[in-house]
């Protein structure tokens, strides 16, 4: 009944009321005092095997690993073992293409390894869904409108 009265009798009160209701609905994680929060990470180990064209392993070759978010600076450096193998665990929060460069005696190559949803994964409970993000954006805009209406009413 009260809600109906606001709708019929005063549009500005409805606006302010609706703003408060949506704001409360949009931020449950902030309001709940005893909400649980769990972060989790599952990582995937990457192994490369570097060989020459002849199939001979590139033993003791230099390895430089570049993360997707900083292609200019090495994320990790190392050396292949005698069989040309090198293993590393990428930071699974850095999704995208990881570049692994291997060099020895004037020979070199770069492997481009995608790491994303199909490989290492990251996540957390309590994260916002797309719908929640859109709803929060609407709330912010609606808050501007409601605030403006409130002050314009006082002047009137």
């Amino acid at each position, binding site marked *: 009944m009260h809600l109906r009265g606001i709708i019929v009798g005063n*549009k500005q009160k409805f606006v302010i009321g609706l703003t408060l209701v949506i704001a409360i609905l949009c931020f449950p994680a902030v309001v709940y005092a005893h909400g649980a929060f769990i972060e989790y990470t599952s990582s995937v180990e990457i192994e490369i095997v570097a060989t*020459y*064209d*002849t199939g001979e392993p590139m033993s003791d070759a230099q390895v430089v690993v*570049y993360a997707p978010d900083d*292609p*200019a600076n090495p994320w990790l450096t190392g050396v292949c073992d005698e069989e040309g193998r090198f293993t590393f665990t990428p930071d699974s929060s850095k999704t995208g*293409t990881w*570049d692994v*460069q291997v*060099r020895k*005696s*004037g*020979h*070199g*190559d*770069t492997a*481009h390894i*995608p790491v994303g949803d199909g490989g290492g994964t990251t996540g957390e409970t309590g994260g916002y869904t797309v719908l929640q993000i859109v709803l929060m*954006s609407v709330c*912010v*805009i609606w808050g*501007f*409108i409601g605030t*403006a*209406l409130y002050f*314009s009413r006082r002047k009137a």
Partner: protein
Amino acid sequence: MKKRFSLIAVVAVLIAATFIVGCNGGEETGGTLQFYANGEDFVRQGFVSKDGWSISFDHVYVVLDDVAAYQTDPPYDPHEGSDIEAEVMVGLEGLHTVDLAEGDEDALPIRLGDVQAGVGHYNAVSWKMAKAPAGPAEGYSLVIMGTATKDGESIDFTINVEDEYGYACGEYVGDERKGIVQDGATADVEMTFHFDHIFGDAGTPLDDSLNVGAVGFEPFSVIAQDGELNENMAGLQEKLSLEAYEALVTMLPTLGHVGEGHCHCE
């Protein structure tokens, strides 16, 4: 009242939109991308061939055409041998004849030119070695001039290559990462030429694939006359042994690299 409400709503949306756009960081204007050609220390300082000839170079003219750099995603893989597919490409206009032996032993790689380039990683490069219409390499895509000495014997040689080659390469492989253009900054890409692929390298084991495939200099010394050799590919086909000529034909397309990274050649 409705009019005022509408006005306030529009203003509020505009303010919110301004915040959102402002957080985007503004438009990226790009930077400068420089193109270099590099014959490495083999050309600048000379080296000893796989068969013991000390080789120094007076001039190594290479004629470059259709020089371009690309942002490729997924990164171009020269092993697949396909064409480079990219949404972003920048290139140098015109044909460039450069002397890879220019300067002293510590000379820097040869800078062909600069272009304005959008922000991003230029992780693929392509170029052609084309016959020069004029200049010191007229009629050839590659001219190698130098002196080879061994056991007191000295041979002045000029090897002229009239064949043309097209190289498609992935990203530079070397001490540093190249081709990353940032806003307002300068980056570079490099076309690298490995002449040890032709002559071999005494500093590398003889059973290394590099030396196994290389021609060496001994076959050239055999056909030199009075301490001089000046031939083009047609002449070399006629005078070299079949084995040596085929090795030369096989190795010439492997000259082009990006640092230590290999290229696809057509």
